[in-house]
């Protein structure tokens, strides 16, 4: 039965994240916007505890998750993706840059968790892992990565350049995309775990960015960088058909989370704007028709309805993933909508705020810079619209370019 009312458990977990965002992120948001590239040491308390020494065999029994009833999964499992987007919204309401540099929660960690072998998970799972996909000539067209990996004895030899790597400096390991058989095209693309300090693996420089400055973004150069054979994530087999599509499918789960980032930042800006509107004596009471109010009120309601639309499209994509339903279409729809509407909302808030939307004295102008990334990374708004249209009409990438 359809209901969009969150359960108490969900509300509770959302509230916990909100408190963290309010108490830990907000107070230092401006500081690390100004001190770009400085590691926010306040986030150390979020670091996952280092794994203890291996426990004696007797205690090593795997923990079984027992559902309360046969037909009822525990709520934490039923709502994994939904909890994910709710949490991201709250954390990004606190600060998007700081959320992106949440210690130990890199995109590489998600990749290792998703496709890593048991050995890889045991060895690398608890280390902060960045993800290196983008190259100077391979942005949205991630299938055309030029970085190569050649097997030489027991080692892969990697050569190439990777840009826009989130947590480039702070991560301990990096999952690098490279092609092991360029003649096979995108089917040859595999990912490799590269440890910091490996000879031939160099952090070339860190970017100075428009926003999300608390998050360190960098460029790596790989020059005859040798990694052990067993550092290849997943299967080394080059399958012509499914392999790359499989890689791209993992983005079905991450797109709603990026959309939730736009939602969190836009909500922060909208709440701040509402506060200022109400301080000025205007009451927003959700009563009058749009042709019976000032343009300021109308703009506000319009933005609020846009925000709600973003949120519900995100919830739709996440809850489909939780129900085990393929959601590529809905994941791209929510990302397309949220990147665009989120950016527009914050820009408009700054316009409404006037001088308050341009000064460093509050965070509004920062949110306007921060939110812009959500319409760019994990696939630009334009790419999302392409994907949505292709999926809807079952068109190939050759037909709809």
């Amino acid at each position, binding site marked *: *039965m*359809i*209901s*969009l*009312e969150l*359960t108490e458990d969900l509300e509770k977990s959302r509230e916990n994240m909100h408190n963290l965002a309010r108490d830990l992120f907000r107070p230092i948001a401006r500081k690390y916007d100004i001190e770009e590239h400085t590691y926010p040491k306040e986030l150390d308390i979020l670091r996952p505890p280092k794994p203890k020494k291996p426990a004696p065999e007797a205690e090593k029994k795997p923990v079984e998750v027992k559902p309360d009833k046969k037909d009822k999964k525990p709520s934490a499992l039923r709502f994994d993706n939904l909890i994910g987007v709710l949490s991201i919204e709250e954390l990004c309401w606190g600060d998007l840059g700081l959320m992106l540099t949440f210690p130990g929660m890199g995109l590489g960690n998600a990749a290792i968790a998703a496709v890593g072998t048991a050995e890889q998970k045991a060895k690398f799972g608890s280390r902060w892992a960045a993800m290196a996909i983008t190259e100077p000539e391979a942005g949205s067209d991630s299938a055309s990565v030029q970085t190569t990996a050649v097997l030489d004895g027991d080692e892969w030899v990697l050569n190439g350049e990777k840009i826009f790597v989130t947590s480039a400096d702070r991560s301990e390991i990096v999952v690098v995309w490279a092609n092991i058989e360029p003649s096979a095209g995108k089917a040859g693309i595999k990912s490799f775990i590269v440890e910091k300090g490996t000879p031939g693996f160099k952090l070339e420089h860190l970017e100075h960015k428009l926003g999300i400055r608390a998050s360190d973004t960098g460029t790596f150069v790989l020059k005859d960088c040798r990694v052990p054979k067993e550092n290849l994530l997943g299967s080394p087999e080059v399958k012509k058909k499914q392999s790359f599509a499989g890689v791209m499918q993992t983005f079905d789960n991450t797109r709603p989370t990026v959309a939730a980032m736009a939602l969190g930042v836009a909500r922060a800006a909208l709440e701040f704007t509402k506060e200022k509107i109400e301080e000025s004596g205007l009451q927003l009471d959700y009563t009058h028709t749009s042709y019976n109010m000032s343009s300021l009120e109308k703009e506000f309601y*319009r933005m609020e309805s846009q925000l709600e*639309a973003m949120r519900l499209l995100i919830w739709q994509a996440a809850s489909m993933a939780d129900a085990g339903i393929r959601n590529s279409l809905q994941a791209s729809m929510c990302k397309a909508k949220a990147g665009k509407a989120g950016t527009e909302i914050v820009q408009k808030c700054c316009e409404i705020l006037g001088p308050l939307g341009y000064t460093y004295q509050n965070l509004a102008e920062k949110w306007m810079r921060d939110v812009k990334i959500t319409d760019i990374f994990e696939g630009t708004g334009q790419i999302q619209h392409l994907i949505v*249209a292709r999926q809807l009409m079952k068109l190939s990438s050759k037909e709809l370019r």
Partner: protein
Amino acid sequence: MFSLEMSKEQKMIKDEVAKLVKGIVTENAAEMEEKREIPAETVQKAWALGASVSMVPEKLGGFGMDDSPVTTAIILEELAFGDLSFAILATLPSLVISPLLTMGTEAQKNKYLPIICAEKFNPSTLALNEPHFGFEPVNMKTVAEKKNGGYHLNGLKCFVPMAAQASHVLVAATLEGKPELFLVARDNPGMIIGEREENTGLRSIPTYEITFKGCEIPLTDRLGEAAGCDFEMFLQKTRIGMSAIGTGVSRASFEFAMNYAKDRKQFGEPIVYRQSVAFIIAEMAYEVDAMRLMTWKAASRLEAGKDAKRAAYLAKLYTGEQTMRVVDYGVQLLGGHGYTKEYPVERFYRNGRGIGIIEGLTTV
């Protein structure tokens, strides 16, 4: 509770309505508009599904089921996907049934519900909108006054569907500064029903202007009697209803335009191979979903017994704006052909304009 999956029952009723609409509405909508009439048997078939009376107690002519605003929203979207006028006509009595059920006194329910919930479709209607600049439901110029042991109504209403055919009209008017609802029988001499209106959309159902001139109403016909009505709740429900039909009209335009663009060839290939066309289709797709979700969100709140003021307001605002955007895209994608009556998108365009402007044509 959180779930975006329909229950078996919801899925069943949705499919049933979709089948009905496909069978007797979609293909005939243009002709119905041309003749400016929806055949009585078409309406009767929709009425016979019983959705409008499902939550009325059995002894008063209904099925005694639980009230589900979400299910009603699902039904309304399907009906409006077929045709906006049809959706409004087929559910018109709900505009009186729903307020009666939630705010009427026992005596009012016993008196009116059996008449309205008869097996044969018996139109009753709502007079809410007013034909003047700056109209809004919380600030009506139609006024009720206490006089001679009853109420006297004075004022002007417009967009009243089936006013000349309805047995009863539920009239919204300001009483002592507050909006209230009054039940008026059609033969009341103080209620003067004007000529059938000519409007840009909604042309398959007759709508009328009504003049109230010292219209006398007994105390017992004020909804809720002395206690009055919860006008805010009434508005929430009609706003959600309007959002649901906006979603339906938008989806109709979106699907038609998408299929057209897949077939239409220019420069030797389907026009959807062009990003400028494809991006519009993508936008239409997610806006239709967003409208539906906003509608369901507000309906879920009501269903959970929570206040839906904000959610219903935002849903109506959003669907009002986005419906206009989507039906505009629908015409645009068909180009010159979209501008002719040969295709339905021009009708969707005219009908879609009403969602943001008109209040209270339907309810959940």
